[in-house]
């Protein structure tokens, strides 16, 4: 009977308790923060350029299996390793005196070989001949073919998938380890901290390329072996140091003390309070780690140390072993692959810088 005496303001508070389940409230909050962060990210056009390039490469990588499945591309012709276009392509070729004078193999042919084949030609003659691979770009092969007759565009698309797979796996291993190690080292301090930080120093001392060469000699490296290896090196190495310093600045915040006073044990404080607040920076380092992993893979497969189907570095390696490396006339063998590594690695870096401005308010515009 007394309810009528309760002040109006108190009644209103009771009504306001939401009836939605907790996860939906959390999802809503997440969506809100995503929207505001996206607005910040969009304002920084550098990050947006990176994101667009990443999406373009993702489409390129995903398009290849679709092209095969829908029959637009025949696997016999367009497979990255075994594909070979056996059609006969006729080209006009100028006869030059000997092999050394052949600068452009797609439009010049040496006289000695023709004479050995029983044809009587003079230097300077223009003759019709079947063109051997590598073919320059045309309607069927938008980026030409390699010396074995496989399509360059198809290899490029496969390489995009390989780069995404390797880069993201390596980056997530790196950041997972680095976040855990950094938070634990920062929270517990003392000998735990010393141990992990000196271990990080040890990894930073290593001449990375030489170590990778040593590691690859233990058996031919597969792509995911390399990804895990790079992830371990980065995760216990440089990234752990950066994330530890971030965790240190979180550790001294009052809410950590509050959690301890409230009776939270170490495990709970680290997993529920420390790590979530280191996470934004971790995401940033995912981006930078992808850049590093893609570059490392390209260098290693350029040196021919990986056991993989196809990748951008391997495309250049194969060009080198076929002897077309320093020839401007066959540019399509080396330019697209090198450009792809540069663009995708750069795009992840640019996107990372865009995210940096969200996470680090001191970089934002005045």
């Amino acid at each position, binding site marked *: 009977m007394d309810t009528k005496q309760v002040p109006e303001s108190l009644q209103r508070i009771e009504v306001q308790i939401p009836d939605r389940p907790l996860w939906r409230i959390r999802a809503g909050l997440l969506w809100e923060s995503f929207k505001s962060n996206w607005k910040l990210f969009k304002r920084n*056009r*550098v990050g947006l*350029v990176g994101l667009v390039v990443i999406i373009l490469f993702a489409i390129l990588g995903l398009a290849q299996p679709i092209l095969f499945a829908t029959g637009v591309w025949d696997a016999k012709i367009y497979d990255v390793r075994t594909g070979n276009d056996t059609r006969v392509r006729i080209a006009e070729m100028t006869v030059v005196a000997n092999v050394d004078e052949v600068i452009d193999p797609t439009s010049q042919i040496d006289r000695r070989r023709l004479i050995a084949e029983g044809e009587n030609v003079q230097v300077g003659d223009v003759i019709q001949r079947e063109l051997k691979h590598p073919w320059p770009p045309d309607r069927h092969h938008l980026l030409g073919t390699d010396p074995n007759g496989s399509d360059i565009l198809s290899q490029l698309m496969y390489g995009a998938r390989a780069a995404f797979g390797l880069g993201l796996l390596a980056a997530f291993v790196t950041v997972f380890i680095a976040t855990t190690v950094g938070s634990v080292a920062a929270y517990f*301090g003392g000998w735990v*901290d*010393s141990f992990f*930080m*000196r271990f990080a*120093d*040890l990894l*930073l*001392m*290593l*001449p*990375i*390329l*030489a*170590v990778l*060469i*040593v590691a690859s*000699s*233990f*058996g031919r490296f597969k792509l995911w072996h390399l990804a895990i290896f790079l992830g371990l090196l980065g995760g216990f190495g440089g990234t752990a140091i950066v994330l530890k310093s971030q965790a240190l600045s979180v550790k001294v915040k009052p809410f950590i003390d509050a959690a301890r006073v409230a009776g939270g044990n170490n495990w709970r404080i680290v997993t529920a309070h420390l790590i979530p607040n280191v996470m934004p920076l971790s995401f940033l380092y995912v981006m930078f780690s992808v*850049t590093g992993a893609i*570059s490392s893979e*390209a*260098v290693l497969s*350029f040196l021919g140390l990986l056991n993989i189907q196809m990748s*951008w*570095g391997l495309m*250049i390696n194969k060009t080198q072993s076929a002897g077309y*490396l*320093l020839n*401007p006339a066959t540019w399509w063998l*080396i*330019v697209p*692959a*090198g450009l792809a*590594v*540069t*663009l995708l*690695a*750069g795009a992840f*870096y*640019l996107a990372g*810088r865009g995210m940096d401005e969200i996470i680090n308010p*001191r*970089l934002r*515009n005045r």
Partner: protein
Amino acid sequence: MSGYHANAFTKGSPLGRYVIKRFVQMVVLFLVFFALSWIALQAIPGNSIEQQLRLNPNLPPEAITQALARRGLDKPPLEQFWLYTKAFFTGDLGVSWSRYPQPVSKLIAERLPRTVMLFSVALLFQYLIGFQAGKYLAWRRNKRGEIAITIAGVSLFTVFYPWFGLMMILLFAVKLGWVPTNGFIVEATWRGAPVSANHVMVIMFFSLLAVTAFIGLTSWASSRLDQPNRRRLVKIGAWVVGLGGFWLFWATNQYLVYAKDVAVHLVLPVSVLTMVGFAGVMLITRTSMLETMKEDFVTTARAKGLSEAMVRDRHAARTALLPVSTSLVLAVATVIDGGIITESIFGWPGMGQLLLASVVSEDIPVALAAFSFTGILALLGHFAADILYGVLDPRIRVTSQG
């Protein structure tokens, strides 16, 4: 005097204690690194030395056993490690296996000046250009050109470096023929030369160092002068005297022909290294400048009515130099590892190529020496960077907590 020193480095200053603690950790870390390197190199499957010897049909089995015994390979691994460690720390680096019987120390003494020459010039250009570019980039925030420069810079920073080097060789050496494609000298020029290439390089290095130091120190000293006109005069004078002295020194030098040969071979690798490396410096400087520009003392400088150029160069840029100089120290520390690709592409026979060749051919004494060398450089670099941070920025206090 000695009492004063002991006091300063043990009890009194936290910096002294920190230095000692770090030094002890560094020694321990190096021992671990040394042992791990040895184990990793030993564990490479297949013993290439033994295989090479066995493939030679002219060698009787006794000769093979003898050859292995000469290299100490007949002993159990632990004893090998102990013997090697003992020799290493008494200054005996052993002999190379693939270039038997050249001593490892001689190989390193031969290769090191070349790497130092190439990378000192490249780092000089990288940091000069990168710092200036970063400064302007931060100052022109959100103005026209910032995005273009940032994207160009990042593309150069993350470029697939071996490919980029090859492209530059293709363009400037093969197509245009301005510079040699690879190598570090033309042998014909040096036939009957009265001096070794390394000797000329050492002279080149020190003359360059002297000029850079002279110009740098004079410009720095000139910024203490009050009158802008006099300051400009001293700065221009420093450049004229420095470059003039450099020209005079080489014009009258009997080794000019040889120095020219080396210099011509330096042009392409140095340009490529500068193009790839300056962007990294630029981005660090930009971030550091942006953070510095939020500081109160920059606002104060503006409020005093100083010109924008003055605020930028004398207030913001100087504080922003800190992370840049740290990154320079770290860059020096990783020169050999970073040199592997550069030296392979440009055929520059330096430490990087030595490291690569020794690892590939399982020449363990050379590989271990090169590993240790990079390890020591990296340790000293990190140590120097830490100390530098503490000395240059008084706000950062070194605590004894590791």
